[in-house]
């Protein structure tokens, strides 16, 4: 008879989540699930292309999902839209399990409050990522709203006119709970969730709701309150702005005080990072941001000698998916002198370097090639000049003053309308040297929340509340910091600070969005920033900031529900679940 009994040795049943170990294992899985939303190609494409900040590079044009999203010629089978849709619900379900089972789990009250707070923050963030892309989404996965689902449901609970309202309420309830129950500060050197992270997101969600069809009168005030609570209690929360903007995104300084929350990875540990093959995986849970913004720096030669016959760790694999618009380069970052943020955001100077190992024949050939150009390792290889005039004057130098490196004028750089050279300033916030190979994905944490954005949220809410003076003050905190560069004399610094100051008169939503680009450029938030504020069409097509966006319509404020969802659901009349415009 015992032949007929089953005793599995390698799996638990669902009851495991009712133990304290199981509770933690669920919340850890939910943390890890955020990697799907911060780092892999689908998430990056969704958040960056088709905005005023970024369009697609030449290889982005050849990648259907990038081109489709970058031109709003979008179909429900696009792989990128499947990234949050296909991944978030199972993690939401785990968060539901934690919230539901925690009361009966034997665990001390403080720990329990913390783990539930973490689950509720994560659930809110998962929902926000869905709502900002797709509009109203199911709260009922099959067992009731916000309930852990263990029944095999193929229903699609998306109908109901008040669903969006409920979505926002659920997120706000979760974040209020999290902001009251999580620890004040995150541990040093770790990105575990804290009160300040919850307040940051709470402020953002209130703000988004304030622009939505389900807005409530108190939203701007609540957004302001949450943000101010952070700004007024920086010491208590253990956060602060860094002196140098350039240090915020510096590799190796990932756990600095300005960053409130990041989705973690750790360098060179594929197992911990859940990466199967770091050199070929683009999707799943990888952080491929280090390669996605890179221009074709390998194509640059001088006298027939390639500066980078082999790729280097610093600059990575030139996947040319994302291309900064001329608006970003020329208008948003018009002042590249007083404001240090351009040089800390974009790579305009490339230095002679190689991946070849010293002592090999390849290395020797490379060094002698560079020597024939009068260059050694570490010298400038080429430079992307900020203006035509500067480029012209540099190129005009002759004799011993002549530059040994190559200079590109803006007119020589690549855009989708100007394919002369495959070179453009590439976002460098995600550069990662600490990798095994130049092809590899990154082992760096991916920033989700930083203190500077809290200032911007507070400023935006203040503006909506009619307090433009205060808005200007808050923004000037960031602009003052932006003047800083190491080794400036205090006189020089003060002069630059003065130049950077703004007044209440310039404050409006467009200015705030401009400032958000300067502070947060490329940080996987731009598309939502434009879409949820209703500024997407205005700032891409109408104002012409992104010349690749020509066919955008109102329905593009939402993405289509992925075809795979509709294919798998057992409901009749599937098109009723699809967003308008994609039916």
């Amino acid at each position: 008879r015992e032949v007929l009994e089953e005793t599995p040795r390698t799996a638990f049943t669902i009851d495991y989540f009712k133990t304290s170990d199981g509770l933690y294992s669920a919340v850890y899985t939910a943390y890890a699930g955020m990697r799907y939303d911060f780092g892999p190609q689908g998430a990056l494409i969704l958040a960056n292309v088709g905005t005023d900040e970024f369009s697609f590079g030449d290889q982005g044009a050849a990648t259907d999902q990038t081109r489709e999203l970058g031109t709003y010629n979008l179909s429900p089978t696009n792989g990128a839209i499947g990234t949050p849709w296909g991944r978030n619900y199972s993690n939401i379900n785990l968060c539901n399990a934690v919230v539901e089972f925690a009361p009966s789990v034997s665990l001390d009250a403080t720990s329990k409050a913390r783990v539930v707070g973490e689950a509720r923050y994560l659930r809110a963030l998962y929902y926000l990522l869905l709502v900002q892309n797709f509009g109203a989404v199911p709260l009922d996965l099959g067992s009731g709203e916000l309930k852990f689902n263990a029944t095999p449901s193929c229903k699609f609970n998306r109908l109901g006119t008040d669903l969006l309202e409920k979505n926002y309420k659920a997120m706000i309830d979760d974040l209020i709970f999290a902001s009251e129950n999580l620890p004040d500060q995150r541990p040093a050197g770790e990105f575990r969730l804290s009160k300040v992270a919850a307040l940051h997101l709470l402020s953002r969600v209130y703000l988004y709701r304030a622009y939505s069809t389900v807005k409530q009168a108190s939203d701007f005030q609540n957004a302001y309150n949450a943000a101010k609570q952070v700004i007024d209690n920086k010491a208590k929360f253990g956060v602060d702005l860094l002196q140098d903007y350039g240090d915020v995104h510096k590799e190796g300084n990932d756990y600095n005080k300005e960053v409130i929350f990041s989705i973690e990875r750790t360098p060179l540990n594929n197992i911990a990072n859940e990466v199967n093959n770091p050199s070929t995986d683009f999707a799943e849970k990888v952080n491929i941001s280090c390669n996605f913004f890179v221009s074709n720096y390998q194509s640059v030669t001088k006298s027939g000698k390639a500066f980078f016959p082999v790729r280097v760790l610093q600059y990575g694999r030139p996947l040319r998916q994302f291309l900064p618009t001329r608006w970003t380069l020329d208008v948003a970052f018009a002042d590249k002198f007083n404001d240090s943020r351009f040089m800390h955001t974009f790579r305009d100077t490339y230095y002679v370097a190689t991946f070849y190992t010293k002592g090999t024949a390849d290395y020797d050939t490379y060094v002698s090639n560079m020597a024939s150009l009068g260059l050694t390792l570490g010298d400038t290889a080429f430079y992307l000049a900020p203006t035509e005039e500067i480029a012209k004057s540099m190129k005009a130098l002759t004799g011993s003053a002549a530059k040994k490196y190559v200079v590109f004028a803006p007119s020589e750089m690549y855009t989708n309308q100007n394919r002369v050279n495959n070179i453009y300033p590439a976002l460098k916030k995600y550069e990662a040297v600490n990798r095994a190979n130049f092809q590899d994905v990154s082992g760096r944490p991916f920033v989700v929340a930083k203190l500077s954005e809290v200032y911007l949220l507070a400023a935006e809410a203040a503006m909506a509340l009619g307090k433009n003076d205060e808005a200007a003050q808050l923004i000037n905190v960031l602009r003052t910091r932006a003047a800083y560069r190491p080794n400036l004399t205090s006189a020089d610094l003060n002069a630059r600070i003065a130049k950077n100051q703004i007044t209440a008169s310039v404050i409006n939503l467009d200015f705030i969005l401009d400032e958000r680009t300067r502070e947060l450029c490329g940080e996987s938030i731009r598309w939502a920033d434009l879409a949820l504020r209703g500024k997407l069409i205005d700032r891409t097509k109408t104002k012409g900031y992104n010349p690749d966006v020509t066919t955008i319509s109102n329905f593009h404020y939402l993405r289509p529900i992925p075809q795979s969802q509709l294919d798998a659901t057992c409901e009749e009349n599937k098109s009723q679940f699809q967003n308008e415009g994609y039916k």
Partner: protein
Amino acid sequence: NSFTQDLLNRTVSLRVDNVEFKQVLNNLEKAADVKFVYSSKAIQPNRKVSIHATERKLSEVLEMVLRPLQINYQVVGGQIILNSQEIEKINNDNSGINSTISADQTVKGKVTDENGAGLPGANILLKGTSKGVSSNANGEFSITYPSGTNAILVISSVGYITQEVTVGSRTVINISLLTDNKALAEVVVVGYGTQKKSDVTGSIASINDKALKEVPTSNMVSALQGRVAGLEIQRTGSTPGSGNQIRIRGERSINGSNDPLVVLDGIPFEGGNLNDINPNDIASIDVLKDASATAIYGSRGANGVILVTTKRGKSGETKVSYNGYHGITNIISKYPVYNATQYQAMRNLSVYSSGYLAPELESIATGRTTDWQDLMYKSGYITDHNITASGGKDDNLFTIGGGYFKETTVLPGQDFERFTLKASTDTKIGKRLKIGLSTFNTFNTINGQQFVYPMFPILTLSPLMPAYNADGNVIKAPAGNLDDANQYSPLLLNSDPNSWEDKTRRLRTFNNLYGEVQILNNLKYRLNIGADFSFQENAQFQKADSYFRAGQTSFASMNNAKSYSLLMEHLLYFDKTIGKHKFGFTGLWSVQKSQTYNTYTKGENLAADFIQYYDLSQASSNTLMNGSESSRGLISTMARVNYAYDDRYLITLTGRQDESSVLAVGRKAIFYPAVSLGWNISNEAFLKNNEIVSNLKLRAGTGTTANQSIGPYSTLGGVVPYLFQGSSRIPIKYNFGNTVVSGYNVNALPDANLTWESTVGKNIGLDFGLLNDRITGSVDYYSQYTKGVLYGVTLPPTSGITGQYLTNIGEMSNYGMEFSLSSVNVQSASGFKWSTDFNLSFNRNKLEKLDGSVTQNIANSLHVGYPLTAIYDYKKIGIWQLNEADVAAKYNSVPGQIKLEDINNDGKITDADRSVIGNSQANWQGGMTNRFSYKNFELSVVAFVRMGGTLVSALHQPLSTYATILDGRRNQLAVNYWTPSNPTNDFPMPSASISPILSAGSTLGYYDASFIKIRSINLAYNLPESLLKTVKMSNVKLYVTATNPFILFAPYLDKGGIDPEPSGQGSSGLVGGGPGNISSRNLNVRLTTPSTKGIIFGANISF
């Protein structure tokens, strides 16, 4: 009376060749404990006879021996009295025909067997008279007949087909007798026993070792391809040691296995790895096809059963035999890729704007080109050697044997090697007890099967890039574009063979011990103990910065998997014949337990390359360890009753109950009934002794079977610490700073109602034999209906459940027909013979129902009303031509791009324009083996046909393999692409984005799957007897075989394919998980090592 019947039912085994008849009678007296009474004058006891009988009833043996000698027998008081029919006839004949005989004529001649050897003891009877003679030791005879009569000789011999010859004016007549296939194939293995073919009521097809040997291969399954009607075998890989997909009468399961149960010498061969069976050890294969035949295997029988019987020792002198061959294999053809000029033309047309690299420009200037295929392909070889000794005395028989097989292929590091060791004994202890043991031991090694092999670079590296430096060394990274800097040269696999290892070593020992007690003369108990253990190790190593690890640190992994299965069966056999009533009973109680488990470990950056995978603790990064386990148990009770009346009306009733561990408590037991009927029409008076119809039998049956392919623990649901990325199991991890933590996720929901899929099958069949069984064959029609089809529902993401939910919801049907025919087409007196085996079958599979009113589950590729292999996609209707620019523009396309059918006519191409555009089911398939023999020569030609169905060529789907992407960055398969001056409808104009529809490139990969292949041509020469005697050998056969010599017909070949047979299954291994519009069940053609053809030389020698 019953004593007489008991006596006649005694089982005897006797094998004698060319001995005196009285010696046979003596042997029978001992073997069966009986006494013969006869008059020497009446029965001519000195004539020579041969008889081969194994485990036969005495009545059958007497029939075999006595009938050709025209001797009748009668059992009287425990003695068997023999009488000549001639004498009886004379006594009964009152008309006195014999008295009219006048002058006599004499005719002489010689009776020979198929090989021309004289046949002693053959009977030559003058038709219409009682006069007869026997041939002498050389097969010669002389007989007189009355002159003036139209004399007809009837020549017969045991084991041969009786022939009639009209004498005419001839005085010398030489006759070559054909082996009586009917007699040889008389016994059929039916599962838990054997049955006389004429008693069988189910649908069973058999194939013998001789036919298997006609296709030399590593695996018996490949040799079965196209040989048995209703048995569909398709390749799933083209490298040595790769497997086959076997289907008997279609597919019944969506998520479960559709593989048939393989039973080796009565014990289920679990785990299905058929590479573990040495084809040389096989004596016969019987395929149980219909539900009435498979029901005795209950929960495991739904997919049909393949019964493999191995060779065992036979009584007589010890025989030693050697069977072996060696051959050379080469690719059947190269993949067609662009040459340098064509490549440039394509690239210059494409959107790829990066310039040619310096070495390419140099090639363009100098005309240098590289043919990567020529550089990579070498000849392979296949070699097989077996030695077997067998023999023993009547009560103590043995076989021992060993084999070695190795097959390599055209690419380095891919091979399959197998050592086998086999032994069996059968020992009688006293009169009533018999015990025996058989053991099969296999050690095999497959190299180069796991890694993604370098076909992609071989076909896509630029023909303009040189392969070697000026100093003759392999250029490491020869890609023609900077983006592929990490594409290392596949030639490194040759030049640096120590840089990688991909080795699967497998040891299996499969043992079967039995004991048999003859409790009464008609009651037998048998105990079977099966013990099956296997150990498999998959070891991998990749050196740092080598072909497989370009720019990366070293990698090593080790996966150890163990599995064992223990089986105990108690069997009871009872037989009884009362007058014309014949009863048989088989009862079984069995218990089986099996377990498999594995440990996997991997790591990167090893301290030194020589460590390889031998000490993974020396890996310094990304180390991982995991494991898995599954166990299952089965307790079964089975009974089978056979009843026959007068050998005319047959009925078989079977019932089996299985209780399995994998089902939920309270639902573990299921009962499977079956009934089948047979009518031996040719035994009816009106057909008896019919000159044309020698055998005619109608069979009909119905029964229930089930599919046991529910995985262990499926009913319990599961929370596991990993998730899947494609087919890779990735542990759920996260880190807080340097602290790494693990997570668990829900991967399966519990389903306490889960039960097996059950299939009700019906079969009706007709067996026939014409012209004294010179033409034999059978026709079967069957239908099957499966309910509760197991179905892993992919729930929509919004359910919060990522794993599939396994449940019983679908219904499926199969029906089909099978036709097989064997005939001796020509049989000339000169010894020339031509015979043909032919079979043809078709199966129609249809998904009848899914959950509720759901008619389509696109995510799972399930479409009600269509076969399981339905392909759901857009319909390509051509390429937009120049004069269609306006219409194309409406569809967001331009001339030169793929033109898709707007099925719903809404003026745009959307997902709604997808439909079922085909399936992989063949319209019909079959095979034909022609055998020619003349004197000592034999020639056989084995052909395999598959007509109809849609071939999915992942090769030609741009996003599946990137081999036809036409983006200019790499070389690729040569396809006929559109240009303004080449307005083809085949492939679009080279472009980075093939169509506005992301996935429409998949429509380029559908072709007609029909083909006719010659699998082998085998020419053999048997050394003449005279020569054999001088070298003291009993048989020497030398042969040469051409394997896969021709593809006679295949439309796919005209479209750029090289082999229409599939080379992969599902979508794993394809870029991005494949096209997504075929199910993981479909087979397809992909980038794999090209198929090979070979010339093989072999010898079968026995002493």
